[in-house]
């Protein structure tokens, strides 16, 4: 029985197997891309097929845009042989495109078409697009205000924190005076200073800058300090026998050796300063994305809130990406750093 079926399989199976792998290969390489295209067609159809339950002006445009994305996914997949690296990038992201298309379809159907999720708390995608097109000037102003405030406070906090950290790590005298102050004030959440800061500082902008600098400064100080303190004495011995003066020991030995720690502090400081930024804008400053969120809530403009949240997330993520790329450039000598 077994021998018979084996030879039978060999005889008749040979031509079939020679064609099947070609098709299987094509499905494996392009299947997800085609699926992504279908997912986005489904999203486009979900926009145009049913009537909206509410009054949104961008439904039609969004449907067309979804079809364009679907077309790009389809042609990018089918024409992969002629497109080179662009289609390779597409292929890599195709699973995400499928998931995104499916999610948007579900979102569209659940909100704009059948209102399974209660309005206005869950606005449909087109109303968020509407915010980006119709409320753009105000949103851009808010982005600009937030970036300005954050950048100023962060740079001041990082600089002061770095210098303080190096001083404490290096000089016993500075450590004697600064360390207790640091222990007393540092762990306090910067937001706790908010009420005091807003009436002691001349403007809400300077108060917020101070708070952001404070939130950034503490982790940067502590980690710079621990970085400088943990530098091996052997490095100092080597440098001293080669004729190094104290300034050389600080600038060319202690600081470069401490840099990996400093970047951990800068990263942590960035995270906690975002929190302070948003709270400060919600409470005191009359500009920025935090204020925009607050304002949108006051008007029950939930689409605006989601739109602002998305922008905020992109900005924060972008800031961290920037920090990591600076770190990767400065710390090329380190091996095995985390890829952000």
């Amino acid at each position, binding site marked *: 029985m077994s021998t018979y079926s084996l030879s039978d399989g060999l005889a008749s199976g040979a031509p079939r197997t020679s064609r099947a792998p070609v098709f299987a290969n094509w499905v494996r390489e392009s299947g997800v891309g085609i699926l992504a295209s279908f997912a986005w067609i489904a999203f486009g159809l979900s926009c145009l097929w049913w009537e909206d339950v509410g009054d949104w002006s961008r439904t039609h445009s969004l449907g067309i845009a979804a079809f364009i994305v679907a077309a790009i996914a389809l042609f990018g997949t089918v024409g992969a042989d002629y497109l080179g690296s662009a289609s390779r990038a597409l292929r890599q992201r195709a699973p995400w495109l499928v998931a995104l298309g499916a999610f948007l379809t579900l979102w569209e159907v659940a909100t704009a078409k059948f209102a399974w999720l209660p309005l206005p708390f869950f606005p449909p995608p087109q109303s968020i697009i509407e915010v980006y097109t119709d409320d753009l000037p105000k949103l851009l102003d808010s982005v600009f205000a937030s970036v300005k405030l954050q950048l100023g406070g962060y740079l001041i906090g990082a600089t002061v924190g770095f210098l303080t950290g190096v001083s404490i790590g290096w000089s016993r005298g500075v450590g004697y005076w600064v360390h207790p102050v640091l222990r007393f004030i540092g762990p306090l959440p910067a937001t706790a200073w908010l009420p005091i800061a807003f009436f002691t500082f001349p403007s809400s902008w300077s108060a917020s800058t101070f708070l952001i600098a404070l939130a950034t400064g503490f982790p940067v100080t502590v980690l710079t300090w621990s970085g400088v303190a943990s530098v*091996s004495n052997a490095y100092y*011995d080597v440098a001293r026998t*080669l*004729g190094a003066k104290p300034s050389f020991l600080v600038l060319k030995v202690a600081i*470069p050796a401490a840099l990996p720690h400093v970047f951990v502090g800068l990263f942590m400081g960035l995270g906690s300063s975002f929190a302070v930024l948003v709270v400060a804008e919600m409470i005191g400053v009359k500009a920025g994305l935090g204020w925009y969120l607050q304002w949108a809530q006051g008007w029950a403009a939930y689409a605006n809130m989601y739109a602002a949240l998305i922008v905020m997330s992109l900005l924060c993520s972008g800031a961290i990406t920037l920090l990591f790329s600076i770190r990767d450039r400065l*710390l090329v000598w380190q091996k095995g750093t985390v890829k952000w």
Partner: protein
Amino acid sequence: MVAAAALAEVVTHSAAGAALDIEQVSHAFDIDGAELPVLSDVSISVEPGEFVALLGPSGCGKSTLLRLVAGLDKPKSGTLREDEARITRPHPSRVVVFQDPTLFPWRTVWDNVALGLEAQGILKSQRHRVDAALDLVGLSDFRTAYPHQLSGGMAQRVALARALVNDPKILILDEPLGKLDSLTRITMQAELVSLWQRKGFTTLLVTHDAEEALVLANRVIVFSDRPARVKADIRVDRPYPRHRGDPYLADLRRQILGLLGLDATW
């Protein structure tokens, strides 16, 4: 050709060795308030250009003596002099090569070798000396590499180049070959001898390997257990390159191991 040019470069800069006088030096560590003596009344006089090996049981205080010679620490009593001048602080004329290469991981090989000249503020006009020192240890191709990309032997060669680029009058070696594999070790011993012969610096080598001391040095000083005292001062009157199997050296080795209390095993 390149190597010859590099050699010429280094030789023109070379300074002859300095004399070193260690006079009645005693030293102790403070450990939790208690005083732990490590050196007891050590006197050694080293001629310019001598190669002196300091041999003793591990933890006896040899490395402490080197730190005093380098000027990294001050002795509790006694004086150290380099060419009559009292040693009070580190100076690039006395450079140490430690057991660990302690290269700066954030600097490339070239920048590591350039460290001394940079610290002394003369790198701009003396860049060729860095290239020459790298040629001398045969690592010119690795000038842009980072320390984590080097093998142990290569890293120790870079550390040697970093010392030699300063044209030291006294080269202080604190078990520099201790952590290398035996093959690399033998090669680098030969390189050390030829560098010393060419450049004429005074060399102090701390080691716990009697054979290494006898293959390399003119003089072997044997220390006692902690606190270290000079137990014997042995002249090794043999031409270089020396042979490990030389019966004369084998005899000296037996004597030395006897002094260290290991005669029963040999």
